[in-house]
């Protein structure tokens, strides 16, 4: 029998329980349907760790996102490649993302003469699937060399499914010779780690590693520490080049050499006692360099250790590139710095060993592909992150070869000449909008895999190439085994789990999303991973060298008196940056020219030709001719002219097209267009040992036209013999006057 007290207790409990229940349910249901995602706070930036894929260097980036818009890219702090810095091209990433000429969606055209028109993704993918099915084994895939991760792996799977040859990486950097020479001297083709921060003497042959080379951010970081990172030691830099470029400007010693004779300086450094070595007098005769400078460098090289010799840039453009680089690499052996701090260390394999793409196809292999196209043996061509026109001189007649391919699909994000030749355009999302990954091109002293994550939603109706390829392959009857791009990359990165670096896959995935990837700084201690092998060190530096010999040039010196030196300006970075208005408008740090191409002529030669700044000249080679505006350049000998590889395109964007009808809205001024590119002039000469393109092997003639050129100069020059090129007011010291 329940008494009154118990009754009250029970009813009270029941009542409060009811009330509590009611409170709970009401609270849990109160959720505004306009609530935004946690990272979308107005005015508050969110940072996503990712990788830049605008060039092959493989820098880590932080994407600053405000309210769903990517507004700035910063270097990822402590990333082994860029250590928090970022190059001008990387900074231009947001302009690549919001470029006004980006493809808004897929396009196709009924026949080759027609203008492409918009289509739906379903139809575009069906068209791709049809193309793949019809081609089967006669499929060729060209991939841009900035693709340095699992994207290549998926394309390789696609090629395998159709029993087609493996995709070819198209390189604009001329790495064939570097790899070939590395095999000979270091025993491995990869670009090793050059320990710049700890070295004391750096000898750079032909290159500008700090601004236009393979990984400018990494070598610039090393350079800063090399100069001023140590309390008492300041590293010394010597540059051996034909043109006085950015590296020569910061060098302690510059040795000017005739085109293609860089190797003779390396031979002189080896000394006449070594087989293949020569005396300084002979080197001076071969290179035309002042002998006292060669002797000064020889002295430094005798006394200073550790010392590093690094070759690239100009050297890669000549027919003796491999032999020259072997001579340069041998200096590291002679210096005894292989595998030592401040020397040359092996490059570590990335923690995900299957992510490294094969070496880029040599120019010779690409020419062989063109021949297959001409012979009608290529039925379908896929262009992924690659504009093949960038990798060929006009003389290679790529257009004619493409005309013989019945089906071309381009995954270009932005209009380029490759996309203009395509039957169907399947615009790829930018690296800020999609999944991906990357591994560095060069040795960095760490084992690196960088993950790319979608920091923002696709801005236009673009789709990641992986998604399109998976779907098209399914349509053509080959399931590659992945649902979509996200699943593909997550699957690839799941192999990390057994590593015990980060226990449990889920947490490791979250961790790499947060940190931007995996960076092992002690690469020798990876459990279960491929151990980085040592370089082939010969303890006794018994280097036996074959003299590089003279470079061969195309064009008769009698009619074509000048060497044409194509310049790899940091503004255009081998064609990867030409579409970005910031990079177009950036003043070239040496010539102060902007927007398009120009020709650098020494003031002495300009006097002889009777031309000066802004004058137009006609430059002619055996392969074509070109009109260019004159820039006076005190850092060139009289018989060499420099023309930047400006990579203007026939059908590019409004900012990098040869001709454009764009009118600048602020001023209503018509854009003059970028003019034809120096690739029109270049001879298709092959470097025999590596099969690379000897892009510096062209001789030209120059005739003034008597007209003024459409040249853009950020700073107007005064010929240096009259007055140093200084802004008037900085040059002149003002008197102190009272302020305020």
């Amino acid at each position, binding site marked *: 029998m329940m008494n009154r007290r118990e009754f009250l207790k029970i009813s009270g409990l029941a009542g409060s329980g009811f009330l509590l229940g009611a409170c709970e349910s009401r609270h849990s249901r109160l959720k505004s349907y306009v609530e935004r995602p946690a990272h979308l706070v107005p005015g508050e930036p969110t940072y996503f760790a990712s990788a830049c894929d605008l060039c092959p260097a493989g820098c880590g980036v932080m994407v600053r996102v405000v309210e769903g818009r990517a507004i700035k890219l910063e270097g990822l702090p402590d990333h082994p490649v860029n250590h928090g810095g970022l190059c001008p091209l990387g900074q231009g990433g947001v302009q690549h993302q919001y470029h006004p000429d980006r493809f808004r969606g897929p396009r196709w055209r009924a026949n080759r003469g027609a203008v492409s028109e918009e289509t739906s993704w379903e139809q575009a993918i069906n068209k791709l699937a049809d193309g793949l099915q019809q081609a089967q084994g006669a499929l060729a895939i060209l991939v841009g060399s900035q693709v340095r991760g699992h994207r290549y792996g998926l394309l390789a799977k696609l090629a395998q499914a159709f029993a087609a040859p493996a995709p070819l990486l198209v390189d604009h950097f001329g790495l064939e010779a570097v790899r070939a020479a590395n095999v000979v001297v270091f025993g491995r083709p990869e670009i090793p780690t050059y320990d710049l921060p700890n070295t004391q003497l750096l000898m750079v042959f032909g290159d500008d590693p700090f601004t236009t080379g393979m990984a400018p951010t990494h070598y610039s970081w090393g350079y800063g520490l090399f100069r*001023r990172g140590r309390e008492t030691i300041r590293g010394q830099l010597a540059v051996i080049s034909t043109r006085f470029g950015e590296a020569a400007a*910061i060098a302690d010693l510059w040795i000017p050499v005739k085109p293609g004779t860089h190797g003779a300086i390396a031979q002189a450094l080896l000394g006449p006692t070594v087989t293949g070595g020569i005396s300084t007098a002979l080197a001076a005769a071969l290179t035309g360099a002042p002998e006292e400078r060669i002797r000064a460098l020889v002295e430094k090289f005798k006394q200073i250790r550790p010392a590093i010799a690094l070759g690239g840039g100009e050297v890669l453009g000549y027919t003796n590139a491999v032999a020259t680089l072997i001579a340069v690499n041998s200096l590291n052996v002679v210096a005894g710095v292989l595998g030592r701090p401040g020397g040359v260390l092996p490059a570590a394999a990335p923690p995900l060993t299957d992510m490294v793409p094969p070496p880029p196809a040599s120019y010779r292999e690409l020419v062989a592909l063109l021949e297959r196209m001409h012979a009608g043996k290529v039925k379908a061509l896929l262009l992924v992150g690659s504009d093949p026109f960038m990798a060929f001189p006009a003389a290679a007649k790529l257009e004619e070869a493409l005309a013989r391919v019945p089906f071309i699909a381009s995954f270009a994000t932005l209009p380029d000449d490759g996309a203009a030749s395509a039957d169907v355009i399947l615009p790829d999302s930018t690296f800020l909008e999609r999944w991906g990954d990357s591994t560095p091109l060069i040795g960095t002293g760490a084992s690196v895999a960088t993950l790319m994550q979608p920091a923002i939603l696709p801005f236009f109706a673009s789709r990641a190439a992986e998604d399109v390829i998976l779907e098209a392959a399914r349509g053509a009857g080959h399931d590659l085994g992945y649902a979509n791009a996200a699943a593909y990359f997550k699957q690839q990165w799941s192999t990390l789990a057994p590593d015990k670096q980060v226990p449990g896959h889920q947490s490791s995935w979250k961790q790499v999303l947060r940190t931007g990837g995996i960076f092992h700084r002690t690469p020798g201690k990876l459990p279960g991973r491929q151990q980085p092998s040592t370089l082939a060190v010969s303890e006794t530096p018994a280097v036996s060298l074959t003299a590089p010999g003279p470079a061969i040039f195309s064009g008769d010196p009698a009619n074509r008196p000048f060497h044409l030196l194509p310049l790899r300006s940091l503004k255009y970075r081998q064609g990867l940056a030409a579409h970005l208005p910031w990079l177009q408008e*950036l003043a070239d740090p040496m010539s*102060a020219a902007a927007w398009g191409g120009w020709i650098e002529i020494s003031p002495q030669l300009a006097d002889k030709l009777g031309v000066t700044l802004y004058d137009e000249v006609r430059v002619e080679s055996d392969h074509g001719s070109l009109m260019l505006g004159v820039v006076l350049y005190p850092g*060139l000998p009289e018989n060499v002219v420099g023309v930047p590889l400006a990579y203007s395109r026939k059908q590019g964007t409004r900012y990098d097209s040869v001709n454009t009808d764009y009118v600048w809205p*602020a001023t209503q001024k018509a854009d003059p267009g970028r003019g034809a590119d120096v690739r029109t002039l270049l001879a298709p000469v092959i470097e025999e040992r590596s099969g690379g393109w000897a892009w510096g092997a062209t001789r030209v003639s120059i005739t003034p036209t008597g007209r003024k050129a459409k040249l853009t100069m950020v700073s107007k020059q005064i010929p240096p013999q009259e007055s140093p090129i200084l802004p008037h007011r900085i040059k002149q010291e*003002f008197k102190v006057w009272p*302020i305020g």
Partner: protein
Amino acid sequence: MADWVSDKSPKGQHRWGMVVDLDRCTGCSACVVACHAENNLAIAGPTDTDEGRSFDWIRIERYWEGDFPDTKAHFVPIMCQHCEAAPCEPVCPVYATYHTPEGLNSMVYVRCIGTRFCQNNDPYNVRFFNWFEPALNFADPLPNQLNPDVTVRSRGVMEKCSFCVQRIRRAEDDARLAGRKLADGEFTTACAQSCSARALVFGDLTDSQSEVSRLAESARRFRLLESLGTNPVVYYLKGGQA
């Protein structure tokens, strides 16, 4: 405070300054593009760039010396020197450019009436006038890249390096809200952040422990056009063996 800081120093809590180590600069121009990206600098286009109307709050100047083969060149990154005795400030009839208590040579865009007196009086050529509506040259959808923390200037207005004042304010606010002091290196300007070689170092000159103060005491230091008596807060460190 170090003894070389002049007694004309502003009396703010911080005094922002920069050190440019010319021995580290490679001329790579990353700072130039980073500044464009951070500060919504307009694209002038080829013709206007040639006519001297492009915008570069920071630029790499290159000085030639000698003839081939004795050619030499030097890179000098030049931005507003944020002078303590800035010649550009007293000539502004509307106080559009003034000195903040923290030592910034600041521009108030809405006050500017475009007399360009400041540009005329600026010995470093670091002020830029908007002759045309700059926003128009951001073809759609390029405006999406614009930094919402920075005003897009309008026609008839002068603009210049602000030492990324938006970053300073954000960092100061964050520190104040968290109830702590702003730490050295907590934030930096866009140019210094992009610099791979660490040639640019930004920080507080009142903090004697900050990297910028330490570097500014270097024996290699000099300032641009020192004889003008402008007292810049940008210190350059000589390159070469010095």
